[in-house]
Structure formats: structure tokens, C-alpha cells
């Protein structure tokens, strides 16, 4: 650091000497030197600057001794951003960072003020550098130069900012097992397979040499382009022309753009052709529907899979058929599959299923002895972001699905039918039911079976207090035990 009148001149060790900047900034803040009295030099521009305007700035006016500024407390994120801004090619960058530090010591909330011009400039510069690093990761093209020990890769690249060292670790992580060199006008990076060496800049001729794979790469590039969607502006926004000279595929661009319209027109004008006759046998993929198809419950499940009696099939994953022994004496009917049942294709496997299993166990009824199904076999829901919110089926949907339940009842022929909740009761009884009033009292169904209405386990999950939950759970256990006791009581 040197002083020329009131101007404090900081000589850094190079374009990327952020640590040198930090040290100097700390001293300058302690001396109370305002930003406009600092100048920051990174290399040989020092000589020029000595006799240029820089040296004259502010030196005419004599400075009153300024009070020291406390070094501001800054976040880790700010230091990272500052380090990034330090790589920008703008020669004012270090003064900008220093100015922010200076202001932060008086305005601690400055960085929250996203519309402040200094904050904006700082943010934009950090963004430009990050983008440049990202583009370097994307646009470096290695050529295999086949050294004496096999593959060796060399690339020529021209970044906008001083980013080679910041961008190189990416290539180390990716290509640690290869040997490679990236040459840029300012610096070069060489990976020996063990160490990353940073050396002086180079000339593009050092990397010029073809690679037979470039031809294949160009074939790929030309063929993934869809001429019917030509949009060169969008391409140039992400891959500006200045990058093209070092991208082997970019030499195709003018021709691809020029011929796109005629290629598209030709596709549209060409009359549709007659289909090719299929040669050879085609393996049948659809499920086997031979004469010896499944019977009983499997047949019902198979037929229900294709059901479109109401619109619920279209957004649901699958029909969820009932499950359990074909000769079960007890049948439990729920409302409809939920989110997890829809994915698994099995009834009562979600949170309500867990409550149901617990209640069955406490009631002494083994689930493996019961046939468990739903009034409606498709999940009805409303999407909400990454979730699906259960929606109650309508009477129409329950009615549309009823024939499946009837076929299950006919086939299993249980002695006792438990209806969990209003939808199940609606399906079995064909009328609206007030569950809390009618639950737990066995009655005869028109076909002579015993019927028991109980609360649906998901109702218990929705209750607010533990006391309510416990009471409702106890009632469910009671009702299931009642139902279990009716088996054999014909």
C-alpha cells in the first residue's frame, strides 16, 4: 500500500488476490480512508496509472484526519459474493467492494436494500462472474491429443472474467482420472492426474488439432435440432456468438438456420404416406383374454380394472379392488382408496389403514380372515401442489360403482357386512345414513346378512383432541367386536 497525497494506492498480487484486498481493506477502514480516496491495482497497470489520472484524484485537496470506521460485521454469504465479484474484469471492482464495506459500517442493513445502486452493481457483477464460470463448465471442449501414455486432453477457452482458477476444481472432480490442460489467454490449468498446476497464458495455436469424435458430435448436434421449431434468438440468448469460435458444433449453425424453413415446408407439404405393412408376428402385450379367463374374485378385479362407469378412472392411477379370502365370513366396506392405496393398488394400506388394523386387532378380528373393500374403487381427489387432497365421492359415483360391490358380496357371500362411514352405508343400503346415530347396532340387511355401521378410521384421524380420538377409536373397536361376534350367529 502506498500513499500519494490523499490517495491510497493498493497494489494487489494479481487479478485474483482477494486475500490481499481483504487485508488492505481492513487497514484502510481502520484509518478511516473513504472509498473515493482509494485506488486498487492488480498488475502492470500500476506503471500506467502512476502517470495517469488515478494519481491526481483527490490529491489537491488536503484531507482532514478521518475517524476510524469499525470493520462491519458481514455474513459469510457476503464474503463469498465479494470473492466472486473480485474475479470480475471491471477494474473498479475492488473499489466497489470497499465502498460497500465502508457504507455497511454506517448502514448495517444496506444489503437488504436490494434497490440500492451499489448493491445492485455488486449483485450484477457477482451474477456475471457466476454465469461466466457456469458457461466455462459448459463450453470448454477438450480434444484428445494422444500423449505417449494414451489419452491426454487439451482445450482452448476464452473466459470473460478472471475465472480460470475458480472454474478448474469442477474439472478436477469430473476428470480426476484423466490428464488434461485448459489454456486461456491469461492463465492455463494443467491436471497431471495428481496435482492442478496453474501456469501462464497461451496462444490458441497451442490447442489447435482435430479430434475424430468432433465429427460425430456435429452429426449429433445437427440431428437433435428440430427445424420446425427454429428460434435462433433463444439459442443466442444462452449461447452468445462470441463463444461460437471455440465450439466445434457451432460451425453448423448458419446452414441449419438457413435451411430450416425449406425443410419444415417439405415435411408439411409431403402427402401422408400409406402405412408400411407390418412384417412378422407381433407379440401381444395386452393381458391375456383367452377363453379360460380368471373366475371369481380375480375375474371381478380384472373386469373392474377397465371400469369407466364414472369419470374418476381418468385421473386415478388404478382401480383398487377388494382383498381377502374368497370365503371370508366378514366383509368390511370402506369409502374409497386414498393416496397410498391408489399407488399400491391395495385397500387400507395408508394412515387410515393403520388405524383400521389396530382396531381390528384390539377387537380380536384377524384382518387376514376378513374381506376388505371399498364402496368406490377409484381414488377421488383434488390436486394441491405435491399432494392430493381426498374428496368425498358423490352419490352418483357411489351408485356407478355399486355393481362391483354387489358382485363381491355375491361371490364372497359373507354373513356380516361392516360399513365404515356414510359412503359405505350409502353403497350397501342405498340411502343416506347418520353414522353417529346408527352405528354399532346390528340389523338385518334385505338379503338376510347382518349389517353393522361403524365410523370410518379416517374420521378418527381428523378429530382434534386426544380424548375425542380415544373415544371414537374405542367405539370402532366395539363395533368391530360386535360384528365379529355375529359370525356364526345366523
Amino acid at each position, binding site marked *: 500500500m502506498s500513499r500519494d497525497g490523499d490517495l491510497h494506492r493498493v497494489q494487489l498480487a494479481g487479478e485474483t488476490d482477494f486475500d490481499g484486498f481483504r487485508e488492505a481493506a481492513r487497514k484502510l477502514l481502520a484509518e478511516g480512508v473513504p472509498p473515493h480516496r482509494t485506488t486498487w491495482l492488480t498488475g502492470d497497470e500500476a506503471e500506467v496509472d502512476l502517470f495517469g489520472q488515478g494519481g491526481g484524484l483527490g490529491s489537491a485537496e488536503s484531507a482532514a484526519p478521518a475517524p476510524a470506521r469499525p470493520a462491519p460485521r458481514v455474513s459469510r454469504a457476503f464474503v463469498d459474493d465479494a470473492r466472486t465479484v473480485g474475479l470480475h474484469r471491471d477494474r473498479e471492482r475492488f473499489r466497489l467492494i470497499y465502498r460497500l464495506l465502508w457504507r455497511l459500517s454506517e448502514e448495517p442493513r444496506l444489503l437488504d*436494500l436490494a434497490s440500492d445502486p451499489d448493491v445492485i452493481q455488486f449483485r450484477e457483477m457477482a451474477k456475471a462472474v457466476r454465469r461466466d464460470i457456469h458457461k466455462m463448465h459448459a463450453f470448454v471442449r477438450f480434444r484428445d491429443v494422444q500423449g505417449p501414455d494414451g489419452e491426454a486432453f487439451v482445450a482452448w477457452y476464452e473466459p470473460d472474467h478472471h475465472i480460470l482458477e475458480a472454474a478448474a476444481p469442477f474439472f478436477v472432480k469430473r476428470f480426476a482420472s484423466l490428464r488434461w490442460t485448459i489454456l486461456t489467454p491469461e492463465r492455463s490449468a494443467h491436471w497431471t492426474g495428481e496435482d492442478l498446476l496453474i501456469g501462464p497464458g497461451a496462444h490458441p495455436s497451442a490447442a489447435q488439432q482435430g479430434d475424430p469424435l468432433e465429427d460425430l458430435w456435429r452429426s449429433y*448436434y445437427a440431428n437433435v435440432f428440430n427445424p420446425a*421449431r427454429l428460434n435462433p434468438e433463444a439459442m443466442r440468448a*444462452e449461447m452468445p456468438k462470441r463463444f461460437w469460435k471455440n465450439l466445434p458444433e457451432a460451425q453448423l449453425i448458419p446452414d441449419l438456420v438457413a435451411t430450416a424453413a425449406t425443410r419444415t415446408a417439405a415435411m408439411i407439404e409431403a402427402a401422408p404416406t400409406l402405412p408400411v405393412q407390418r412384417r412378422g408376428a407381433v407379440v401381444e402385450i395386452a393381458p391375456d383374454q383367452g377363453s379360460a379367463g380368471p373366475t371369481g374374485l380375480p375375474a371381478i378385479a380384472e373386469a373392474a380394472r377397465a371400469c369407466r362407469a364414472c369419470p374418476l378412472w*381418468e385421473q386415478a392411477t388404478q382401480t383398487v379392488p377388494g382383498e381377502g379370502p374368497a370365503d371370508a365370513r366378514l366383509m368390511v366396506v370402506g369409502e374409497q382408496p386414498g*393416496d397410498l392405496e391408489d399407488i399400491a393398488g391395495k385397500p387400507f394400506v395408508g394412515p387410515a389403514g393403520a388405524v383400521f388394523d389396530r382396531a381390528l386387532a384390539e377387537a380380536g378380528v384377524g384382518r387376514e380372515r376378513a374381506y376388505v373393500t371399498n364402496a368406490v374403487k377409484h381414488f377421488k*381427489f383434488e*390436486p394441491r401442489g405435491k399432494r392430493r387432497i381426498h374428496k368425498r365421492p358423490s352419490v352418483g359415483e357411489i351408485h356407478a360403482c355399486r355393481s362391483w360391490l354387489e358382485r363381491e358380496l355375491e361371490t364372497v357371500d359373507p354373513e356380516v357386512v361392516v360399513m365404515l362411514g356414510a359412503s359405505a352405508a350409502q353403497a350397501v343400503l342405498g340411502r343416506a345414513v347418520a353414522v353417529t346415530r346408527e352405528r354399532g347396532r346390528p340389523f338385518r340387511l334385505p338379503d338376510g346378512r347382518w349389517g353393522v355401521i361403524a365410523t370410518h378410521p379416517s374420521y378418527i384421524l381428523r378429530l382434534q383432541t386426544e380424548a375425542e380420538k380415544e373415544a371414537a377409536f374405542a367405539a370402532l373397536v366395539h363395533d368391530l367386536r360386535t360384528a365379529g361376534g355375529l359370525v356364526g350367529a345366523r
Partner: protein
Amino acid sequence: MDLKSKLEILADAAKYDASCASSGGAKRDSLDRKGIGSSGGSGICHSYTPDGRCVSLLKILLTNSCIYDCLYCINRSSSHVRRARFTVEEVVKLTLGFYKRNYIEGLFLSSGIIKSPDYTMEELVRVARTLREEHGFRGYIHLKVIPNADPKLVEEAGRWADRLSVNIELPKADSLERLAPRKEIGAIRRSMGHLRGVIDEAPRSNGRVFAPAGQSTQMIVGADDANDQHILTTSAALYGGYRLRRVYYSAFSPIPDSSKALPLKPAPLIRENRLYQADWLMRFYGFDVNEIVAGGEAGMLSLDMDPKLAWALKHRERFPLDVNKATREELLRVPGLGVRTVERIISSRRVRSLRSDDLARLKVPMRKVSPFLVLPDHRPTRLLDRADLQAWLKPAPARQLDLFAA
């Protein structure tokens, strides 16, 4: 057939799949020098083709032979297109060769259905397994899942791949039946459901990795009569049901040797663009499908303006909003304010009250937002009453649109 001819045919055949993302993969590197490659983070586009699309992965088909006859597809069995098939080794060699030269982030492999779904899936899995096991490849792999393939094969695919995808193909199940008679919506949805089930389980199962970048899908727009409401309703159900990372919309575009059953007219690209905007509004701006669609007419989004502006013009009673007082949710509904700008406004106004020049410096499009916002030095009440507000706000038509005007 030489490798170059195969690559030409099988890259051309794969280009109608819009996805090329390489983000969200597992964090990997090859510092142990036992393999090659790295992944994790935001994904990288290594090039852009003149259609503006990113080239991130080597996106190819294993073969374009197919026993299915999906009418919208260039590879359908009745098409006259030239056929080719890569060997597993050829795909592996191309992937590694391109990868070492930094052309790509990895591989996106799909295939026509040959012999059977299981046989095809097995071939795809073999490529991924060879790359990972024999060559220690740590780059990104996206595999297409063939509906109706054995769940065990799909689970193995998820062990090697970062992302899996099953294409929903068309927004309406009955159009799928009409245009792709051998594809079955049920099988497609069950595959997605199966993937979600295994993806959900993975974090709970000791260190077992399964498709860390999740699943995505693609829908072709304009090959059937589905309107935008139908499309977005389907998308919302897919996002909610299968936790998709992305739904890609692909405007039906003319293909060489097309079928008579399809419109010869390409769908306007602007429609695809509007659907992406609407998709964004659903996922990041708190809009639901019906609100978005209500901004347009008869179930279609407006092609003239973006869906947020269309919505706002039909809900003028909600505006203007005071920039210094409105909630985050309210500001997100202002046409011209994006998520990041809203965050900056909220952060800045905690320091001091904001004025017009603050917004201008935040690069807010002032003409577009001015009818909707109140600032200490700006009051727009009259503008909101202007009958010709829509015309005043309407952007000049972009040049690109003329090219595709139907």
C-alpha cells in the same frame, strides 16, 4: 451401417422428447480416480441448437424399431423412416467419448419397443449398468421406463439412473386410445405410481439410492382436441399424484412421413409457451388450474398475453396494490413481478419505503406493472378503469410468432 449413420437416425428419432435436464442428480465425483465423471447441482447445458433447446445429455434411442403404432410418433411401426439399432457397447462408447470431451453431462436413453416391454427395458438397464459398473461412470443418466415392464427391471433401472420418466403422451386417455392403440393409460399411470412408491421409500431404506432426480413426463400438445384446461388439470393431478419434478409440454410438430389421422398443421409454439407459464403459476405462484384457465376463454389460455396478465385483467377489483404494504402472495399475482423481484421488494421495504425509481432499478417492467401498483409517487387508479387497458398492455407480437402463424 456405420456408427455415424446410426447416430444420425437415432438422435433424430429422439429429438421429439423435450426433456434434457441434468439437474438434481446424486452428488458424485471421481476424485478417487476409480471412475469418471461427476454430477449433482443445477445441471449444465453444454450447447444450444438453433431451436433454442439446450443440449445437456446425449439423447438417443437404442433403436427406432417399434412394434407399436402410435400415430403421432415418427418411429411407429407403419412409418417409412429408416431403422437402426445401437449395440449396448456402441452407446457406452459414444457416451464416454462425448463425456470426456465435455460435450455432455451424461446420457438420456430411450427406445422403441422391440419384442416386448421386458426385453426393451432389460436392454436399457444393461447400458446403464455397463456404464456404472464396468466404467465407473458418475455422470448423469436418464432412462425411459417402458410401461408394463417387470417392476424388478424398473427397480434396477432406478439404481443406476438419476432420473426415470414415463411419458403420459397425450392429455386425454381417449385420445391415447385413438392415436396409440397399443398404449394403455392404466399401465402408464401404474408405472408412475410404482416409481413414486419406490422414490418415496428410498430415503427410508438404508443408503439405497433410487432415481435421486425423481421422475418427469411429457405431454404432446395439439395432436388431439384437448383444451388447455384439460391439459393443466391432468398436469396438476400428475404433480400431486406422482411428485413429478417436471411435466414437459411438446407442441405437436410436423414429422416426416406423418399419418393421415393427425393434423398436418403444427400446434402454435406460443401455446406450448403459455402452458409452461401456467404450469409455473401453479407450482410457484399459488394459482390453481381453474383460476388460470378463467383468464382465457372456453378452456383455452389467451395466446395474446401471458396467463398472469390475463387473470389480472379479469380481476381488476383486486388492484391496485400498495407495493409497500401488500403481502408476498398478493405481490406474486402482479403481472410483471417474478418470484425473485418480489423477494427483493420485501427485503428492501423493510429498510425504507420504496418509490418508482427503486422498482425501475430492480428492472421491473414499469409499463406493465404501473396499472396494478401504488407507490408514494405513483397512483394508477384511472388506468385500471381504462377500457383499452388490454390493448395498452399487449406486447408487440414477437417475430418468432409470425413464423408459426397457422
